[in-house]
């Protein structure tokens, strides 16, 4: 009798393992650490994630696999192929940028440090495990490991009702989506008798005709859990509230790493496991893609720039729209003879999106250093206050829109577009083109806002000013309302503290760059450098879009 004990290739699982172990180490260290040393935990996290990224280097051949069955056709549960490596790079790099963003937030909002870093690392470990897993059970477990800490992260601001509501909404809807997915997996298992993706594909090839309906239903239901994480319409409704309620770095994390968990899971189940049912999931994903990009972009259009948190809300809706583009190559895979070739375009697009979206969130965090309302109007005339930040933000937004000089955004969009055309999905290509045009409007409007001329009266958004504005709303002062910012605190000149507050703001404005925390600067610089490097040499990630990754 052969031993049932599966051998473990520790090098292959190192990126996931290092992330998870760092998480445990941080949690235990936090218990015995004096409060004044807590900032150290953030740097331990960053070091751990950097180490995890380095662990990807020995794997670049993409031929390692582990947790294999010792009997039968030796199916493996963990495969470190090029697809897994590319997505793991995205996840670990995204988590690294998020960690850089978080250092300041954790300190300023007095979030529980040990818990915050532990949850972030746990979630990242799950998201890194997901693209490498090759059986349905590991996939679902990885999806949950990525999701469960995220609920807690969203609700980590103690005593904040908005944060708690966002977490609850996110938790309940996510759990329902996972339950539906599990039901689908159980149907597929009933129809094929296996959980390993390759065996499932073989089993679905010749399903007992009586089980055809069961298998098709199972295939569609399985997609739900992953579509939820990707925030595809109609599973998107949690996105705006969760992003606004969560600490800003967590919103950035969800928009990038959460999405990568969703699309990599979708790619694996559709292209690898459910290949024989391409005529079922292909049209489903195509409709999902069209709905997602249209809903996301139209909702982003309707955001009012002067409302609280409108910048985060706009990025939330734009991330829904971008999820639609990520879905296009996956849908195209359902119509193409060689589905595995299509997935590369999604991975390339996701890498581009991760860099520039995290960069955009980082600049929003930077602006919030002085004007904590997260309003779009807070970005007005950023160029005159902090030219470098405005230029990088403009670059990130143009990348998201897909315009030069954001060359990489343009190329990634073209790669996605080409998959739709190549597989005969003309209508989806048209929908995508229309959506890219819609998105131009709000991205360009934001970019224009950055470079607008500063208004003479500074918009009073300091905490003191907001406090007085809310405590004395009844006093109808003949306000010196700022022309460019309607509805934004009609500057009650009567109150002394407000005058002092706004003059203090005005006086502090020119010295903005000096007060910016270093980790935040590092995050923005890193994202900008990556974005510029990719724009200069787009073949770095577009190589993924040609040829197969599996």
């Amino acid at each position: 009798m052969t031993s049932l004990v599966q051998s473990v290739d520790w090098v292959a699982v190192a990126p996931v393992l290092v992330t998870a172990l760092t998480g445990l180490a941080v949690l235990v260290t936090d218990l015995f650490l004096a409060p004044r040393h807590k900032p150290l935990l953030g740097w331990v996290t960053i070091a751990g994630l950097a180490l995890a990224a380095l662990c990807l280097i020995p794997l670049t051949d993409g031929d390692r696999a582990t947790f294999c069955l010792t009997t039968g056709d030796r199916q493996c549960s963990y495969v470190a192929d090029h697809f897994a490596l590319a997505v793991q790079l995205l996840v670990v790099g995204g988590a690294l940028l998020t960690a850089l963003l978080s250092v300041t937030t954790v300190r300023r909002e007095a979030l529980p440090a040990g818990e915050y870093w532990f949850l972030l690392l746990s979630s990242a470990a799950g998201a890194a495990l997901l693209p490498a897993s090759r059986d349905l059970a590991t996939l679902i477990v990885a999806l949950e490991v990525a999701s469960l800490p995220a609920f807690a992260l969203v609700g980590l601001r103690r005593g904040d009702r908005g944060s708690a509501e966002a977490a609850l909404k996110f938790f309940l809807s996510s759990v329902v989506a996972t339950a539906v997915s599990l039901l689908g997996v159980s149907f597929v298992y009933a129809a094929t008798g296996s959980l390993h993706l390759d065996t499932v594909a073989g089993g679905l090839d010749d399903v007992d005709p009586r089980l055809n309906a069961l298998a098709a239903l199972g295939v569609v239901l399985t997609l739900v859990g992953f579509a939820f994480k990707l925030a595809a319409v109609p599973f998107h409704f949690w996105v705006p509230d969760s992003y606004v309620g969560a600490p800003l770095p967590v919103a950035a994390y969800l928009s990038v790493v959460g999405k990568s968990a969703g699309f990599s899971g979708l790619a694996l189940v559709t292209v690898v496991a459910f290949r024989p049912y391409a005529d079922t999931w292909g049209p489903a994903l195509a409709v999902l893609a069209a709905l997602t990009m249209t809903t996301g972009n139209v909702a982003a259009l309707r955001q009012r720039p002067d409302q609280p948190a409108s910048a985060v809300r706009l990025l939330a809706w734009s991330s829904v729209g971008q999820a639609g583009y990520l879905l296009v190559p996956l849908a195209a895979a359902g119509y193409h003879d060689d589905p595995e070739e299509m997935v590369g375009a999604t991975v390339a697009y996701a890498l581009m999106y991760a860099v520039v979206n995290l960069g955009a969130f980082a600049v929003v965090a930077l602006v919030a250093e002085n004007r904590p309302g997260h309003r779009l109007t807070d970005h007005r005339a950023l160029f005159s206050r902090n030219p470098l930040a405005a230029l990088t933000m403009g670059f990130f937004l143009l990348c998201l829109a897909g315009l030069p000089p954001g060359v990489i955004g343009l190329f990634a969009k073209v790669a996605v577009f080409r998959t739709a055309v190549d597989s005969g999905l003309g209508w989806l290509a048209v929908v995508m083109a229309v959506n890219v045009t819609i998105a131009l409007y709000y991205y360009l409007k934001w970019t224009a806002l950055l470079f607008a001329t500063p208004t003479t009266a500074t918009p009073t958004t300091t905490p003191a000013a907001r406090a007085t504005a809310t405590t004395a709303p009844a006093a109808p002062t003949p306000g010196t309302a700022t022309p460019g910012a309607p509805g934004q605190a009609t500057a009650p000149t009567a109150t002394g503290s407000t005058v002092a507050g706004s003059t203090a703001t005005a006086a502090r404005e020119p010295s903005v760059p000096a007060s910016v925390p270093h980790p935040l600067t590092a995050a923005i610089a890193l994202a900008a450098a990556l974005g510029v490097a990719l724009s200069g040499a787009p073949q770095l990630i577009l190589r993924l879009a040609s040829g197969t990754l599996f």
Partner: protein
Amino acid sequence: MNAYAPILVLGGLAAVFAIGSVVAAALIGPSRYNRAKVEAYECGIEPTPQAVGGGRFPIKYYLTAMLFIIFDIEIIFLYPWAVSFDAMGLFGLVEMLLFALTVAVAYAYVWRRGGLEWD
């Protein structure tokens, strides 16, 4: 039949212990009654009249229930390992120790954060 002999012996031992304990307690235990001893026993808290419609429970009960589940789950994983201990060998032992260690982190966390203190 021989295979079941140990079970019979175990059953006999259990019966002797159970009956012996009760008898021994009745014979040699001092029986001094006080007020607390004749009150109804409700999980260690004083029985109080409940409010109409159920009243409120302290949230600590839920915390305790959650902690119980953590260690309950640990047992669920320990059981199949114990059954197939021979097949798993040293590898299984090391894996289970690592698993128990990871669960112990949860225990350490609860302890340091004051989850084990009732008030």
